[in-house]
């Protein structure tokens, strides 16, 4: 299981990567593995405002539908359109091609409460 160093993580198993004022959001390797085959992703629209810890996207596996919570508040600048036709990218590449949406951050301080890779790894290992 992978835990890339430069990302920040939530307890609900989302990751966020900040580059300048923009952030990319997806779900973690642990999350995709727990969900199983992803068959549909409902993404927020460009321009939509998302709020930290509130539902921003929905990921559906064969067995269930799960909310994806925004790790930080902001305005959606882009959604990953490739997931419409290739939802399995979430399984294959959760930290790469399987990203879900990009965000212009409202409060960079939102990131302060999130976990580092090391903290998240411990959090996940504690669940087993």
């Amino acid at each position, binding site marked *: 299981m992978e835990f890339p160093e430069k990302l920040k993580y939530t307890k609900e198993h989302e990751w966020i990567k900040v580059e300048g004022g923009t952030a990319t959001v997806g779900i973690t390797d642990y999350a995709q593995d727990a969900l199983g085959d992803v068959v549909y992703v409902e993404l927020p629209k460009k321009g939509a405002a998302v709020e930290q810890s509130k539902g921003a996207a929905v990921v559906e596996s*064969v067995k269930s539908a799960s909310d994806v919570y925004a790790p930080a508040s902001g305005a959606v600048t882009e959604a990953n359109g490739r997931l419409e036709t290739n939802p399995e990218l979430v399984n294959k590449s959760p930290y790469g091609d399987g990203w879900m949406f990009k965000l212009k951050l409202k409060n960079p301080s939102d990131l302060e409460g999130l976990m580092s890779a090391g903290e998240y790894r411990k959090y996940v290992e504690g669940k087993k």
Partner: protein
Amino acid sequence: MAARKTSLYGVHERLGARIIDFHGWMMPVQYKGVVEEHLCVREKAGLFDVSHMGEFMVSGPGATEAVNRVVTNDVSRIADGQCLYTPMCYENGTIVDDLIVYRHDSGRYMLVVNASNIEKDYGWIKSKMAGDGDVSLKDASDDTAMLALQGPKAEAILRKAVNIKLKEIGRFRFKDEVMVCGVKALVSRTGYTGEDGFELYVDSGDAVGVWDSIMDAGKKQGLQPIGLGARDTLRLEAGLMLYGNDIDDTTTPLEAGLGWTVKRDKKEFTGRDALLRQKAAGVGKRLVGFELVDRGVPRHGYEIRSGSESVGRVTSGTYSPTLRRSIGMGYVKPECGEVGTAFDVVIRDTPHKAKVVALPFYRR
């Protein structure tokens, strides 16, 4: 109550299955992934542990009459060595369970019931057979393991492991005391996937040996172990009912489109009067298959609407790995049930377009 384990539990652990609690049973939901396992059964073959299912033995000179009194279908009309699908109903016509009846002969039957209903069914049948000195009922569920080998390669794989010609077992037929990998088994050409295939009943103690031998025999054909996740998507594509989802004690066989299993000319069976009345009056809802036109996945319990009017509920829904679109079944008002009718499935407060299609969704 602690969750129960089948005699193959250790095998599932060894294979790295993800285990879930399914109605009180610790069962493998997937080994590698639902979609891969699903497609493996459609294209090659898969082996399922379904030992959680229940098996009741009914025997005695009055067995045919006794079974016929509790089920809606007619077991006097099938041959020895034949299987029959049938609902079992309450007096009001709603469904206690759906089962497969195996007829050894007029004095001996095996009833295969859903895992979640074993205790309920046993109590119900026992009460219906009480006072009948010509029949005895025995619950053999704990002593019996059940394996399903399903898929286009199933026959070629099993052929290597048995001492009979499998062609002798036609669809919905069975043979008892077949030697499978050196172990005595009842083998039927039945299943819950929409594919050709077999179900094998063996003593619990023999299950691991038979499982390993069959997996070994199927290696070259690409045989894989299959979990309950793919079992559910396979059965739904095949338009087969799941008790607790599509049928239950609030629905009747007539509403579920199982009218062909209700033999009205049979003089006496539980639920007959209610079902005859419903047949005459017409049903108030009917189970239909639908395809989602918009993108999304329908799930059990979602509302079905026509315009702003609520016209039904989804009972089963999934993304179909074979058809690569979302499908479902649900009860709707009869006027919304014709093939081609458009309605909306409400997913997270948003209506998604769907249309009624003929069942099954998939036919091999």
